[in-house]
């Protein structure tokens, strides 16, 4: 089977001005947004606040969560719903720059504690104050201790069963759940638990705080990773292509891969964390490689078709390689799409970036890398000849 019955003949280079215009629009809009608008939002990894993921026993709405948070003066936090049942939320408190650096991580932690306490609600706090334990956050050892007085021999076993069940479900919503399969706890155990514990309204799934010092370090490391990978690729490109024009074109492609992807990304509410940097570099590598394959073809054809105009050779190379470009990008796109749909909340930003990047990579390879070589040859080389 083939995508194209015979080699297609699409005059890609005809569209170079349109492509350039589209690129410019995206990049300029992106740059304006990055520099003057909301722009790129640095995430928790770079020392900007705290990220807390929580799960509620019952479905709640974003506005209810916000109301609870406003009560402790944290109404300006970013609240995102995760998961389908309106039970999981991702809460991002914003940094407070008023405190000194020394206290900042502590203040992040205090903020996080405040978020958690305000979400727990008055009722849960009172129960805790009465000395009841929260069955939705108790650890194995404490639960074992507790159960010893009602089932001395089985305490550890029971505690493990309950905690494992809770781990699988995320949160225990009702006492009935404990009586039903798969736990099937006997009446005496559940009534004992009901008397000594309560089912907390929510549970903390994860909590991340990075202080300013480590944030600064991570920013430095990320910058180093980007700079060194780009240098690495440039060295490789220089080594691989003897012609300056191809090198220049590869660098141009590389720059615009980064610019377009980040421009589009800046229009989403998503934040930049370490996986995003990793994704960006992967996109660059992938797109550069596509470009290299096309350039190889061009030079191969130049040897056999000496009379042909460069523009036509380029078109032919692009067309010859079109099915390869589409298929390999297509398979990567399929896998990234699967990651985007099924991979879950934690990796979703990364998957999203890769989706943009894969499409953008094809676009830049086909429409943008060759024109640069062409311009170089048409304008810069001619000037040299005139001299």
């Amino acid at each position: 089977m083939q995508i194209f019955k015979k080699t297609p003949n699409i005059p890609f280079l005809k569209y170079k001005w349109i492509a350039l215009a589209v690129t410019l629009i995206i990049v300029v809009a992106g740059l304006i947004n990055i520099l003057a608008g909301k722009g790129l939002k640095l995430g928790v990894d770079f020392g900007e606040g705290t990220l807390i993921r929580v799960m509620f026993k019952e479905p709640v709405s974003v506005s209810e969560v916000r109301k609870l948070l406003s009560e402790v003066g944290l109404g300006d936090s970013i609240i995102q719903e995760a998961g389908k049942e309106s039970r999981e939320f991702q809460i991002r408190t914003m940094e407070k720059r008023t405190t000194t650096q020394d206290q900042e991580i502590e203040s992040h932690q205090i903020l996080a504690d405040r978020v958690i306490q305000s979400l727990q609600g008055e009722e849960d706090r009172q129960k805790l104050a009465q000395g009841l334990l929260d069955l939705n956050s108790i650890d194995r050892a404490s639960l074992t201790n507790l159960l010893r007085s009602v089932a001395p021999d089985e305490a550890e076993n029971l505690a493990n069963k309950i905690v494992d069940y809770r781990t699988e479900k995320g949160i225990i919503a009702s006492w009935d759940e404990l009586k039903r399969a798969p736990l099937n706890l006997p009446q005496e155990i559940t009534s004992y638990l009901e008397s000594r514990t309560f089912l907390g309204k929510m549970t903390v799934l994860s909590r991340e705080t990075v202080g300013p010092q480590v944030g600064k370090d991570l920013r430095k490391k990320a910058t180093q990773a980007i700079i060194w990978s780009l240098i690495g690729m440039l060295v490789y490109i220089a080594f691989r292509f003897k012609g300056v024009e191809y090198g220049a074109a590869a660098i141009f492609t590389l720059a615009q891969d980064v610019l377009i992807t980040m421009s589009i990304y800046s229009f989403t509410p998503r934040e930049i964390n370490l996986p995003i940097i990793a994704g960006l570099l992967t996109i660059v590598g992938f797109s550069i490689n596509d470009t290299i394959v096309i350039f190889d073809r061009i030079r191969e054809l130049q040897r056999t078709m000496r009379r042909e105009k460069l523009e036509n050779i380029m078109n032919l190379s692009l067309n010859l390689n079109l099915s390869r470009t589409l298929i390999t990008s297509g398979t990567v796109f399929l896998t990234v799409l699967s990651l985007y749909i099924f991979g879950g909340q934690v990796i979703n930003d990364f998957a999203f970036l890769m989706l943009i990047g894969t499409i953008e990579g094809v676009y830049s390879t086909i429409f943008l890398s060759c024109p640069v070589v062409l311009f170089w040859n048409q304008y810069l080389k001619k000037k040299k000849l005139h001299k």
Partner: protein
Amino acid sequence: MKKNLQWKLAIIVVVIGLCLFLIYPPKDKIKLGLDLKGGTHLVLQVLTEDAVNVETDQQLSRFEEVFKKNNITYLEANKEKPGRFYFRGIPVDQEGKARDLIDQYTRDWDYSFSGDRLTFNLKMVAAQYLRDLAVTQTLETIRNRIDQFGVAEPVIQRQGSDRIVVELPGIEDPDRVKNLIKVTAVLEFKLVKAGPAPDEETLLRDFGGKVPEDAEVVRSDPKRGTQGYYLVSKVATVTGKDLRTVRRGVDEWNNPAVHFTLNPDGAKRFEQVTGANIGKQLAIILDGRLQSAPVIEARISDSGIIQGRFTPEEADDLVVILKAGALPAGIKYLEERTVGPSLGSDSVRQGLMAGLVAIFAVMVFMIFYYRLSGLNAITALILNEIIIFGAMGYFKATLTLPGIAGIILGIGMAVDANVLIFERIKEEIAVGKNITSSIATGFSRAFSAIFDSNLTTIISAVFLFQFGTGPIKGYAVTLICSLVANLFTAVFVSRFIFDAFVPTNAKRLSI
């Protein structure tokens, strides 16, 4: 089968067999990162300045003693800042004697006279040594505490000059461990001179509103119930260093408490002080907060009990920190990431799902598009996955969520090599070459492109590994493994399958 093919088969079987051996059983061989297993990742900074400060205080009081003993007079002795203290008003004629004494007592401190002022400065090397020692000791103490607390496979490592990374898998109550690590755990027993009083003013009324020279004010720990201020003696009767054994028990009302015994030296002092102060209160102070102040009812020698309305967990934790000893310097948390076990197992489930869907989608596409040759690519892909996990097992690499993303991405990229080769073979067939030579040319022509494609991605992955932290390292590792394995499977294994299954005189190729 041709001899050369037999050799190739043998190589493939050995490589795959080795990898399977390295993976099996997966539960033990593939380590999951904290983001998948659940757990806490902490970065903490040792406040090494504390160690310098303590040394400065010690040297200051030591020289005060030495000078007094040797009849060197001075008007004032003071700490200027950590690492520097001075004596003022030493008579000129005693300067020589002072110099001799200092030379005799210390080599870690530089000193200089200017006018009537003698200034001590801690040498750079000595300060560095102290700081370094503080970090090493803190690390050891934290390790002891965590071991005592009982965490399976903790990672406690030094990072840079003054940071310590602590990774605790499978922790369900991170706050408890965080507190356990952070408390300095300086335990002191001091005689109570007055108290409790509701505030400092009331407490000091009998002393003319001033704290006597040999005493200090402590507050009771808010967690221990009764609030109040106490005036206690400055010098501790015994401290945490004098403890010989510590264990959890109960007090006479059956409440959780901590029992201890003292070493002979401590016991001697304890016996003396308790014997002389029967009827008075003895304050038990932890990190500057009074836990309880029992009345001394009889002379006690070498054992005692610490009570203070503890919960069972608090009593357990107190035993842990007392056994492990006090921290030589304070610590500060720089980074904290906690992933609960349910989010971790969710991530594993979702990652697995995404991976399976991805691999299935790619397989369907390859078979649909390349028919039997697609089957060849799929075989290569599956072997590729086996090699990735084998390599991870061999390098003891940790699988993280970004690592799973790397593997999934690798699935998409791995078939790239097959696509390059197959497209070339198709072109060769299209110009009318016979099948066998088309396959041979397809492979040789596509090789440089495959090499390029893997190399560009490996370049960025290597730097990500170099500069990345935990999860990102995981991504870089799986991506690199997947690309290197790809060179073997797509080029070597795929070629072998063609050579083995396509007859030399084949007229058609299902591609």
